[in-house]
């Protein structure tokens, strides 16, 4: 992943992580992926009242090569899924995905054959945002939560360690089928 590959491993990286995280979160450029009603709220976030420029995100890029964050705003139909994946593939690393609204997150009220039941079926989602549609504040809140995650991103060997930990957790985690809670 870019910068960290050029660096020697070691203590130095703890501060580089901080700096890199700060830089990355401070200039997160969204790729527009407005698909439905959520896109209207996303546009409002770009306008003066909510002014996403306050977070260094004013440039909504229509070109995936220049974007870091894909905001999937709206229900994704089965036909749109490969297009969405292609846009994602064309984005340069590091990149993040925000599933905006319940349709992008899980299919929402459209539990039918035409709609993808969650955009995480085709791309890895970093943050899920409920709402139908979410108000602009909710989107900003989601973006800020994502910022925190970006800030805490590990680099180099630390990233590999973090991945290993995550993988071992995932291996021991119960299957979704087994997570029944209070259900019989």
């Amino acid at each position, binding site marked *: 992943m870019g910068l960290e590959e050029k660096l020697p491993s070691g203590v130095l990286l703890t501060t580089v992580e901080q700096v890199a995280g700060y830089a990355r979160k401070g200039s997160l450029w969204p790729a527009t992926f407005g698909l439905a009603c959520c896109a209207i709220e996303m546009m409002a976030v770009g306008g*003066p*009242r*909510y*002014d996403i420029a*306050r977070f260094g995100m004013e440039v909504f890029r229509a070109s995936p090569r220049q974007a870091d964050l894909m905001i999937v705003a709206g229900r994704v139909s089965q036909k749109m899924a490969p297009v969405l994946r292609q846009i994602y593939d064309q984005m340069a690393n590091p990149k993040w995905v925000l599933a905006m609204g*319940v349709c992008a*997150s*899980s*299919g*929402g*009220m459209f*539990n039918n054959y035409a709609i993808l039941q*969650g955009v*995480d079926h085709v791309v890895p989602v*970093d*943050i*899920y*945002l*409920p*709402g*139908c549609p*979410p*108000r*602009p*504040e*909710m989107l*900003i*809140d*989601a973006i*800020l*939560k994502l910022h925190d*995650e970006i800030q805490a991103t590990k680099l180099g060997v630390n990233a590999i360690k973090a991945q290993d930990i995550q993988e071992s957790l995932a291996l021991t985690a119960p299957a979704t089928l087994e*997570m029944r*809670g*209070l*259900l*019989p």
Partner: protein
Amino acid sequence: MPELPTAVRGFGVTFRTMFKRVVTEQYPEAAAKYPPKPRFHGRHQLNRWADGLEKCIGCELCAWACPADAIFVEGADNSEGGRFSPGERYGRVYQINYLRCIFCGLCIEACPTRALTMTNEFELADNNRTDLIFTKEDLLAPLQAGMVLPPHDMVPGFTEKDYYAGKVIGATDTGSATDTAKEST
């Protein structure tokens, strides 16, 4: 009348705007200044009676009304020493999947006991799907003054009909309900 060069005229817009009030809402720094309207549809809440018993009777009417199939409820029997709500039945399992919920409020309209209402809370984003399925513990209203954590008996001398009629005004006023609750917990 000679016209100013367009470049300068453009600055005029900028100059005039400098004296206008800034419309940008400083969310999240000054979030308190821009609260949602009181009727905003935010996260749900499961309410309690004045003595702390749950209002939810597990009737599943909210689940029936839900157009997105976001609510899962399973009722159970209130037993002796295991009473969570007045009457026979309480909601043992209550789940709302916020990745399905469209905040339409039909569940609120369907609720026969006003157990389910909506708050103004909207900061719900999370990084995984599991945590966005809110269970009963997440949704239950916090205990207010005078409330006792269920399970405990109904206030002595009152039936479920008195609860529905709003006659119960607290567990502490009667004293004994609190004692039984302490014994059972």
